[in-house]
């Protein structure tokens, strides 16, 4: 039964900031091992969608579940959130990589990665640090254990933040424009790491402007505009042969 249950299920998500409706009924289910790329113009609701899925923003309407954990349910057109403990369990299911990393500037790379497993998940420090070292290796950051974030390049910082998220063993990893703050050559090294994770069948939802990357890595591409999913399908369908006029307009605009 767990194999058929989506890792994440967002249904009928609505969110308004004042009068401005940012999400107007978005549903997104992600299966185990699936990589979903979310593309679309800025202001189209991509970041808000991700922030609602990661419980940083509260939905006005709609439901949100991570596997068997219901974080938010729809009750007669209003979203009702679960109690604190249940939300805590829900949070343990996902990780989030921010656009601007949000590493803890006063802590070393090792501490940034290994602290949450120790303090939040109460795992033994030795075990957490051993695993952190492996992640540091995997991210191509060997030798950076004792550096602080300000001593690293943006690309390195973003890889630390990916390691930090992975250290908690999330079932699904969200990325909010992970390379938007980076130079092209630093972008490549971050994308390479994400591709490695995709090859390992890590479940991921990635908001991105990198069409080439989306085409390469995503099992499914979702085009979000005006707070709604305009079109979704394989990269070939959505990026190479878009059916919708809005998708075509967006793609030709960013191709310039």
């Amino acid at each position, binding site marked *: 039964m767990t194999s058929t249950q989506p890792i994440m299920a967002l249904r009928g998500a609505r969110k308004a900031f004042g009068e401005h409706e940012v999400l107007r009924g978005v549903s997104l289910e992600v299966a185990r091992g699936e990589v979903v790329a979310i593309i679309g113009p800025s202001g189209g609701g991509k970041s808000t969608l991700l922030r609602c899925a990661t*419980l940083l923003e509260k939905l006005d309407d709609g439901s949100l579940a991570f596997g068997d954990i219901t974080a938010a349910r729809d009750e007669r057109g209003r979203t009702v959130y679960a109690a604190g403990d249940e939300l805590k369990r829900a949070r343990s299911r996902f990780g989030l990589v*921010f656009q601007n990393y949000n590493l803890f500037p*006063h802590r070393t790379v090792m501490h940034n990665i290994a602290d949450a497993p120790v303090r939040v998940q109460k795992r033994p420090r030795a075990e957490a640090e051993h695993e952190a070292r492996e992640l540091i290796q995997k991210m191509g950051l060997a030798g950076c254990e004792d550096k*602080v974030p300000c001593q690293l390049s943006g690309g390195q910082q973003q890889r630390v933040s990916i390691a930090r998220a992975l250290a908690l063993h999330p079932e699904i990893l969200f990325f909010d424009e992970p390379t938007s703050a980076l130079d092209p050559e630093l972008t490549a090294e971050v994308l390479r790491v994400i591709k490695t994770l995709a090859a390992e069948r890590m479940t991921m939802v990635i908001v991105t402007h990198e069409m080439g990357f989306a085409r390469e890595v995503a099992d499914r591409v979702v085009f979000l505009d005006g707070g709604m999913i305009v079109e979704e399908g394989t990269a070939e369908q959505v990026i190479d042969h878009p059916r919708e006029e809005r998708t075509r307009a967006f793609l030709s605009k960013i191709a310039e």
Partner: protein
Amino acid sequence: MSFSVMLGMLTEGFLVSLQIFFFTIAGAVPLGVVVALGRMSRVAPLRWIVRIYISIMRGTPLMLQMFAIYFAPYYLFGIQLTPDSKWQATITAFIVNYAAYFAEIYRSGLQSIPRGQYEAAEVLGYSRAQTFCYIVLPQVVKRILPAMGNEIITLVKDTSLAFSIGVAEMFSTAKALVASQVSMVPFAIAAVFYWVFNFLVELVLAAAEKKLSYYHD
């Protein structure tokens, strides 16, 4: 009167000044946290009361506040003033006055921590208390250190205000000696005491800043 006798009397006075200084730090540093939290409270009435409190503390002379606190028990409740009252009033006034200044410095530090830090902590599953203690507070300390240094140095000199209420700290002693000896030397010695002590304060602050300079954000 010999120089060494004057120096001895001034040293004795300086020990009283130091007591005012350390009692104020010990009281106002933690009280400031409470005041800052009240100032940022979600409860509007509490926020306003604290705001008015800070406004009065910063907007009226510390000297007047000492007098107000000294005489208030007598005028309000008819409580007889004792020889200890002056000292208690002085320490109380200094603590509640400096807590207001410290609170505003804490607030500026807390509000300067980017939202992203809180959001990263939340997504990683840290509790609110853990986020405050391990992630926010250490960063706040670094950010507020220069502003705190300013206030602490001002406090060293402000201890001389206790002279006005008749507490025998160093400045009172110096003034008495100037009058009785018809000499400006006691003032000069007092000035050296204040400056040397503040120089030490500066060294401590510089060491603390250096210790925290291993990162920037």
